[in-house]
């Protein structure tokens, strides 16, 4: 076994050539490919990182906008709820006022109706009462009652004094028409004479007296001359009572307008 130096040098040369060939056809292309791929991967990673950062920003922006939108929506909802509440209160208030007004109108209407009914009932009652009284008194009236009325009339004439007496006398003296004495029934002669005498004694006029029967007087005697009247008659009483009761009713009715319940038939005035 020995070393062949030609072979050694040939092999060394072969090896050097092989080194160059390997560099040329193996290492350089492979390393270049690997480097290119690594650059590409790094670029893609950087790109992905950039995209991720961008997505993060977009997401943050979206979340911020979302939060803003939520706030705005909540604010709008609160505002709408407040407005709705205010509107509801306003409508309720309006409805209450309208109801109050309607109720007040209705109460007023009821009061008016009740008052009108009350007055009508009173008037009717009053009229009936007086009609009954007039009927009763006219049924009861007779010649004897008339005689008593003539006596009372004579007494009343004689009892005249002062300004009344002077006024009546003056009126009779200056009257154009004769003095008219009206009674419900035809007076007897002696009563006519007594009345004539009393007028003459009291008033000293001497004026002739005309006697007249008037059934509407009911019972009593009236002396009528030029609008003046000296009378004692039930009709006069009735008329004056009716007048006073009517005045009283007119005065007292407003007092009972305070409540609908008070304005009912059977009010104290009618009793």
């Amino acid at each position, binding site marked *: 076994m020995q070393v062949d130096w030609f072979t050694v040098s040939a092999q060394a040369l072969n090896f050097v050539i092989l080194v160059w060939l390997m560099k040329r056809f193996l290492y350089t292309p492979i*390393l270049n490919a690997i480097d290119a791929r690594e650059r590409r991967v790094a670029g893609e990673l950087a790109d992905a990182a950039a995209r991720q950062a961008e997505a993060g920003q977009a997401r943050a922006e979206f979340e911020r906008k979302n939060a803003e939108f939520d706030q705005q929506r909540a604010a709008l909802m609160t505002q709408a709820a407040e407005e709705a509440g205010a509107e509801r209160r306003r409508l309720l208030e309006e409805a209450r006022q309208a109801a109050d007004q309607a109720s007040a109108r209705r109460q007023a209407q009821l009061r008016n109706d009740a008052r009108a009914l009350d007055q009508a009932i009173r008037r009717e009652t009053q009229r009936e009462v007086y009609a009954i009284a007039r009927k009763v008194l006219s049924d009861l009236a007779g010649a004897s009652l008339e005689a008593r009325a003539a006596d009372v009339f004579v007494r009343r004439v004689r009892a005249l004094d002062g300004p009344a007496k002077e006024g009546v006398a003056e009126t009779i003296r200056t009257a154009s028409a004769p003095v008219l004495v009206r009674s419900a029934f035809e007076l007897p002669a002696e009563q006519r004479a007594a009345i004539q005498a009393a007028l003459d004694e009291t008033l000293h006029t001497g004026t002739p007296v005309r006697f007249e029967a008037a059934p509407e007087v009911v019972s009593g005697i009236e002396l009528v001359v030029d609008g003046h009247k000296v009378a004692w008659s039930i009709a006069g009483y009735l008329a004056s009572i009716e007048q006073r009761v009517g005045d009283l009713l007119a005065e007292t009715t407003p007092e009972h307008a305070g409540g609908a319940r008070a304005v009912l038939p059977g009010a104290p005035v009618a009793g």
Partner: protein
Amino acid sequence: MRLSPDELIFWQYGFVTLNATIVFTWGLMLLLTLGSMLITRRLSAELTRSRWQNLLEIVVMAIVQQIEDIGLPHPEKYLGFLGTLFLFIATASLCTVIPGFEPPTGSLSTTAALALCVLVAVPWYGIADQGVGGYLESYVEPTVVMLPFNVISELSRTLALAVRLFGNMMSGAMIIGILLTITPFIFPIVMTALGLLTGMVQAYIFSVLAAVYIAAAIRTRPVAPAPAPGA
């Protein structure tokens, strides 16, 4: 029986001989170069690539990683030399499964040539890294007294490289040859498989040793030598 493929001479003219070592080396060179050309002709820089490109990338990156692990900065600079050493020896070992093939690394001429290449490459890279003066200074470190020992170690390791690889490859071939004469069945296959393993180991050892020598040559003046822990 032949101990070396050098002894199989195809053609001779004077001292120029065309023996089996040179011819099989050319064959290996053709195989490696054509294979590389075929695969790297359509390299893909995309994320998807062919399985052959994957294989080459794995091999190349493994070599680069080994060089880096040994401590050589910028491994691409040494990839051409060290990678080719490994690939050549490994391919020669792998091709022993082909009947009739005799590995050129089984010839002392080839291993001596490779060791000489390492002998040249070490100062080459050392000078390229730190200049002529800087490289020569490494021979007189730590003292001038060490100069002859450094020179002897430089030569002796070259001899050791050559003989180690030759001995392993030749022994493998010889064992197979001897076993074939004794038991022609089964055993030669087992020994061939074992030879594949030892061949790969030898390729690895040769390349790593060359890398270590180069690393020693370019690291003679570390900037701040850290004290070894527990030293």
